[in-house]
């Protein structure tokens, strides 16, 4: 069977399992949403009424499939907290914010880590390597929200390069929107840059030990030529996959950072919805974040396949 077909099937299976998991998790909530929403006003009749309205009286499988259908059509019912606002209305715009935050973070990760990793691997033990190693270790040891606070403090309050808490709607002024997103993205990216630099360094160092490098040297290639023409592509291949894996971490980071910078994204909504026990919204956000992660990984796997001649057809 064709690789892409296989990959697509496995993508669909994973998607299905993830959906099932996201759905089932919220079936074990102690006391359902209807009760928690009514609070002290709960009378048996009122509860029953609400349960019917939310569809809780239906069979769990029927509910799962209608919910799964809703994930794609956008019809995920109403928010329990902000009834009658629908879940998709709540999520809609915020998704754009989170996706852009993710894209900018990944861009920053790639732009910083790959050259830095190369330089570190080229001169292990050199100044750049030592300094970046210590910086990387320190950044990996600080919780991401603290890094967000530090970025606000340094770039926002001391250097005044941006206005903390300022947010511009992407539809009204897109360039300004991106400017507002830059420092949050940097905060998300910092710990991941640290990880990726180290990964890139390990990858390059591993490649440098391989036999083909010795062959290249024996051919008369200069150090630079070996780096650029032979090692770079080989060592980039695992990094591509690594960045795919890091997407999940970037999403996790953005949940924190959106709260630090007060950005109206999925993360902030998620945290608020958890506090409000608005499980319809929580469930939908969990699903969409997972969906983002698997989709990116699906794309990354295909890109890898095309770039690596050993797997390309």
């Amino acid at each position, binding site marked *: 069977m064709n690789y892409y077909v296989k990959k697509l099937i496995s993508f669909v299976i994973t998607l299905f399992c993830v959906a099932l998991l996201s759905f089932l998790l919220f079936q074990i909530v102690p006391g359902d949403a209807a009760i928690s929403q009514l609070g002290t006003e709960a009378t048996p009749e009122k509860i029953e009424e609400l349960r019917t309205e939310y569809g809780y009286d239906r069979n769990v499988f029927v509910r799962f499939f209608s919910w799964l259908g809703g994930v794609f059509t956008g019809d995920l019912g109403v928010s329990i907290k902000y009834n009658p606002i629908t879940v998709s209305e709540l999520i809609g715009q915020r998704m754009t914010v989170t996706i852009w935050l993710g894209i900018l973070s990944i861009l920053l990760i790639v732009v910083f880590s790959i050259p830095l990793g190369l330089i570190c691997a080229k001169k292990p033990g050199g100044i750049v390597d030592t300094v970046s190693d210590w910086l990387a270790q320190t950044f990996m040891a600080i919780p991401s929200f603290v890094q967000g606070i530090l970025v606000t403090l340094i770039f926002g309050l001391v250097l005044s390069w941006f206005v903390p808490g300022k947010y511009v709607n992407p539809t009204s002024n897109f360039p300004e929107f991106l400017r507002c997103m830059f420092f949050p993205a940097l905060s998300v990216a910092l710990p991941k840059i640290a990880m990726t630099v180290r990964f890139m360094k390990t990858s390059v160092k591993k490649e440098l030990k391989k036999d083909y490098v010795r062959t290249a*040297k024996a051919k*008369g290639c200069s150090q630079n030529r070996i780096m650029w023409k032979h090692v770079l592509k080989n060592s980039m291949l695992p990094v591509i996959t690594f960045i795919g*894996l890091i997407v999940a971490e970037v999403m996790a980071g953005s949940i*924190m950072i959106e709260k630090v910078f007060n950005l109206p994204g999925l993360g902030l909504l998620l945290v608020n919805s958890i506090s409000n026990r608005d499980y319809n919204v929580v469930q939908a956000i969990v699903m969409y974040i*997972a969906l983002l992660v698997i989709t990116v*990984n699906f794309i990354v796997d295909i890109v890898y396949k095309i770039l690596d*001649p050993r*797997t390309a057809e």
Partner: protein
Amino acid sequence: MKELKYGKLNKRLIAGGLLLGLILVPVVINVFHTAYDPNEVNYAEKFLKPSWAHFFGTDDFGRDIFTRVMMGAATTFGIALFTVTFGALIGTVIGALTGYFGGIVDEILMRINDCLASFPSILLALVVVSLLDKGTWNICIALGIVFVPSFARIIRAEFLKERGKDYVLNARLMGAGHLRIVFKHVFPNTLPILFSAVLVGINNAVLAEAGLSYLGLGVQPPEPSLGRMLSEAKTYLFKAPWYELFPCLVMIVFILGLTMVSENFGVSGVSLNAVKRKIDRIREKSGVPEEEDTKDKDDLSEKKDTPIISVKDLDVGFIEDDGIDDTLKGVSFDLYKGEVLGVVGESGSGKSLTAMSIMGILSDKTVITGGSILLDGKTDLTKLDEDEYRKLRGGRLAYIFQEPMTSLNPVKTIGAQIDEILDIHASHLPEAEQKKLVIDSLEDVGLPEPDKLYNMYPHQLSGGMRQRVCIAMALVAKADVILADEPTTALDANVADVILDIFKHINRKYKAAIILISHDLRVIGKLADRVIIMQDGNIVETLGVDISRKKTEGKDGKYSEMPDHSFEIPRTQYGRHLFAAAFSDKIYKDTEDVDKKQSETIVSAENLSVFYKSANKREKELKKVIDNVTFSIPAGKTTGFVGESGCGKSTLVKAIAGLQKYTEGSIVLKGDRPGMVFQDPYSSLNPAFKVRRILEEPLRLKNGFGRSIIKKNREKMLSEIKSMLHKVELGDDILERKVSELSGGQRQRIAIALALLQKKALIILDEPVSALDVTIQEQILELLMKLKKSIGLTYILISHDKRLVSRACDEVYMVENGHVTPMNS
């Protein structure tokens, strides 16, 4: 080199340990004794700066921050410890069982694992916490659940790697049960990885606790935790920066310490494993075989006018921590135009090092400390600057490496890789002309369809073809010195012969001088005009061709009859030794008591077919490796199976040993399961054990392995083991050593002792000597035959080496394309 690395890492370990101590000691003291009540509110002392009374100052309620940080750290570390223990325990059991047994359960669990990996871990923890409600215990459970998959994944990967190793097969042959193998044999080997995974896990748990607290879902007030303090303090960043600073510092120092300690054990927070697994999957689905890791080679490195290369008193040293360790000591020889010079020696004798010195591609840790290498009698290569040298490399000097499978860049086409040499050395050639030269060179080494080959990638070529591509690289630049370092060792016998023919061809056609390095005198005998014998970094002697000796007899009648070479008789002891071993005709079969045991059969196979299930899970079909064969193996003799690699001979004997799941037809074994001695003594003995423990295992299995029984039997076991060590000609002092400290020959002796301790009557020898140096090979063969006679053993010997099999076996079967045919010699 190992020690050098070790010493450096230990420094980091100590530094990391100190950092951890710096945090943990006050934290522990604080649990028992605190100077202030951490929760006592005192508005009068609000926001005091750090002082001797309050090391870290006070917070918005006037509480002592030092006390609170220490209390908070205890809570945070406690949560981390609990969650990681929880995750590691469950994860290890799941990972061990699924990794070892595989199958459908493994498949399902890995799928679930993949799904869980699509949720950012903090998201999963958030959801669990939100479902369970807040509170310290609930955070523990939530984070614990989140950690299970990652531990399961790490341990599974280790078990998957270990389960195919020969020591596991060995344990099965001994009769150890699966659970015993999982927990007693394999598990100890995964401990280093597990340990560092635990450290990385603690690191992640500390950060996760902080994250949850920040989102208001962690530890609830007034109980302090590092995470809660960090998020509470952010409001007072300007007013009381110390409030934020100190909890943050404590966390950073703690995690830095952890990282430094965990790196010492080989795993960093960066998961290479997960990446490798994904890439393997992509390859698997595209039908590309898994790439084998490039093995670390032990090998440290390697007419009558002016010699083209003249090496004089060359000293090469290896940089150690405390100075330079001499590896080549005063090596001198000449290479003339058009000559083939053989260099022979055992591994570590310095033959590759010599060649790499000429080529100027020594590793950074290796330096030339004396002597000269003259090119054309005038240019001293040791004094050449890097740019000049580069012009020679790949130009006049060409190097051909041992491993054709890994010597080419996997992501560049064959054409581009040869082309590169012309780019560097013959610039300004028109592109079309350059391409023609490349294709000509491919044709010259006998590769079919060079036009098509030009655009192909290395993985699409066989090992023999790749080695030809490497030779073509030497041709395209018209190199006049070719250094061939074990060019045929990695190849099958018939392919190796073709490669040697190509060398002969280019030597004649282009008059290129060739230095042919090999551990195998027989390879060198086929090609070389002269041979240099090396030992321990010295040249022992140089032998030229003795034309008169070609068919005449030598003094001791052994190597003289060889048609394989025409070298002079070696004069030194070592040289004679090497020649005797390489060209030995010593026959090990018994000729006398053939009739006595003729009738008895120990193994008989009838219409036996053996199938191989590919490790690739998606390939459901079984591959037929052995096709309907019938044979019987007589007791008390040596029966050989000979064939090239991949012919199915190993699969066949594993079926005899009962280690193959998928067979058809019948195998009848008289008596016990056979014992086995594997080719690679590095993987057939459990690396986690000492020699004593390895040899005790069969006795423990026999006598029972309860603690009291082992204690009672200790003396008896020890004496039994000692007498067995004596039989395999090893001293008692070896008992307390680890496998990694033994030489190849010693390991193989232990492997033999292991089989004998099980009182096996039938022993399968799977390439028992091919990983050993020639001189050691003969010693092991000698020992095997002596034991066979004295104990009355039956051997099944498998080898790719026809000569060896015909010397050692009473009966020989040829294995080819899944068929087995008796060979009459």
